[in-house]
């Protein structure tokens, strides 16, 4: 078992694309760390640097406190599951699982023992004589996991391992991965672009964007208290609503969404005294879709743009109707439960829970 640390890591590829900028990240022993972000955010690069597939431009990668920048992949005692599994097509499942052990020069008996243990663990025992092209997607995925697990690596790397599976299988294997990781207690770095995967799998999540680390923390922490508007809107489906806010000192109210909702300034300042310095300056507010409700106040008259019924709940897209004309209105979304009543084009009243509001300065950083 091992810990992993990225220390001031930057990566510039030979074609001058900057993939990572000053990444600092610590992964604890036995932890499942999920790196998440849109494509091109540098999350896969971070994994490849740790694997030793690409050289580091600046900074240090440490495994168990030892710098590994100069060690080749095979000396880092890591294993990796690739997005397209990268199984060896000309080898049977058994040979695929055995290959890393062969490279370790283990005895035949030892190899057979470990291959069979791993196959049993992953339910592959019946498939050992098959070749990759005779396997289903889910089975391929398991073989790829097996090949990574079989030699009991210190660190386990997974690069979008579920993205080639259909939705149902993805959920099933996601649960299996989580259970397996807990049982084996292997330090794991898991890369995905899917925030649901990140939320469900990660002990902690690191959100990256444009080569920069945005925020690290426990899933709920990131969900409730995003550090910036990027994290706020990236996590959650749909993401956090972001709209304008203004602390109006004259009227002693907080104007939300250009006058769509108003809450008393006093209560906010009592809760978040540090916001005093933002009086009468443009701000942004964020609110999760589920913090809207038809039952609570303050409420405002809004116009329905679209309704997406999801069975147990519905997403209602709307624009606040009472706002000052001419202001650029954003469509907001509310997650409502109960029977759908809203019709497109009609208006209805919707309230929000002011305790769940987040505030960001105009650079998009949270005002703590």
């Amino acid at each position: 078992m091992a810990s992993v640390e990225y220390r001031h890591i930057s990566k510039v590829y030979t074609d001058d694309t900057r993939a990572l900028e000053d990444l600092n990240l610590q992964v604890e022993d036995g932890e499942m760390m999920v790196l998440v972000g849109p494509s091109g955010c540098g999350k896969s690069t971070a994994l490849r640097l740790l694997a030793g597939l690409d050289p580091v431009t600046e900074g240090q990668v440490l495994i168990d406190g030892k710098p590994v920048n100069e060690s080749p992949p095979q000396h880092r005692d890591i294993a990796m599951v690739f997005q397209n599994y990268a199984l060896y097509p000309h080898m049977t499942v058994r040979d695929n699982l055995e290959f890393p052990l062969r490279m370790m020069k283990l005895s035949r008996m030892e190899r057979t023992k470990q291959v069979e243990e791993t196959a049993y663990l992953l339910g592959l025992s019946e498939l050992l004589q098959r070749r990759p092209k005779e396997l289903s997607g889910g089975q391929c995925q398991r073989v790829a996991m097996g090949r990574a697990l079989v030699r009991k690596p210190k660190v386990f790397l997974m690069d979008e391992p579920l993205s080639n599976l259909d939705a149902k299988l993805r959920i099933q294997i996601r649960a299996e991965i989580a259970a397996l990781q807990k049982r084996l207690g292997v330090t794991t770095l898991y890369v995905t672009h899917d925030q649901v995967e990140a939320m469900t799998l990660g002990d902690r999540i690191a959100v990256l964007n444009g080569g920069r680390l945005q925020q690290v923390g426990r899933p709920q922490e990131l969900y409730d208290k995003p550090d910036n508007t990027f994290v706020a809107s990236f996590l959650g489906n749909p993401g956090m609503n972001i709209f304008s806010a203004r602390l109006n000192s004259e009227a002693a109210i907080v104007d939300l969404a250009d006058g769509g909702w108003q809450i008393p300034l006093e209560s906010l300042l009592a809760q978040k005294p540090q916001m005093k310095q933002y009086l009468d300056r443009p701000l942004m507010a964020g609110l999760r879709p589920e913090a809207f409700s038809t039952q609570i106040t303050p409420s405002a008259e809004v116009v329905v743009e679209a309704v997406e019924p999801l069975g147990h709940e519905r997403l209602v897209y709307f624009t606040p109707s009472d706002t000052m004309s001419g202001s650029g209105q954003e469509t907001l979304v509310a997650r409502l439960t109960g029977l759908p009543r809203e019709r497109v084009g009609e208006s209805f009243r919707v309230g929000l829970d002011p305790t769940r509001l987040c505030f960001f300065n105009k650079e998009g950083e949270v005002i703590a």
Partner: protein
Amino acid sequence: MRERRSLAALLISAPALFGLTLFVAVPFFLAVALGFTNLRLGSPLPLEWLGFEQYRRILTDSSFTRALINNLLFALVVVPLQTVLALSLALLLNQRLRGIAWFRTIFFMPVVFPLSLVAVVWVLIYAPGPNGMMNEFLQLVSFGNWVPRDFLRDPQLALPAIMLTSIWQGAGFQMVILLAGLQSISSELYEAASIDGAGRWRQFWHVTLPQLRNTLIFVVLVTSILAFRLFDQVQIMTRGGPHDATTTVMYEAVEAAFTRQQVARGAAMTVVLFLVVLLISWLQRRVASQERELS
């Protein structure tokens, strides 16, 4: 870690790079250098720097200019004929008909025949006298009006005879490449064209030919270069004769360097050959890039 992989890469590519250097690059520069001298194998005369004098000599040599013209003629006749033949065969074979694979085998078979064997067989086909196979065949198709000729000793007929031999041997090669090109044309294009009301002939001009253009350019390039490399058939069938009627650049170069030991002269001739090949490739590139600009 990078250094080790770099070293490994250099080590595994070293044999190939060494071979290409020693057996292609060095002789190539040697050819250019030798072409400016008067080097003769085993000659007591001192080595002299002739500069372009050597090239002046070969370009005013009537046999060599005749050789260049012969190569050019060969290219001008064989390239279009062979390409049209190969394209027709490919079009005929690009049909879903029973037994079509057998015909492909037959047309392709001459390609695996060594040129020297082909040349020897065709010498007999061109045998003089009324019993010669080609003579007999021509008499048959001309209803007895053909006067038997000695093809390979006839200044008018010797080069065409070699051309025919080469077409027979080479058409299958082009055909297979063109057939693959035809088969890679999406059937949707034809469906779209026929919905637009294009008949067979128009489909050929507006779908097949444009789609096949790059393959055709490639095939023409290879055949043109082959035309200037012509040697084996000439050496076996006519030895350049009669009266230089079938001599080629390569034949002259080998004669000079090998038979007469004039290495420098031979080298200069092959440099001319290389320049022609370079010119053809350059032309092909221009034609191909024009296409890219158009599309």
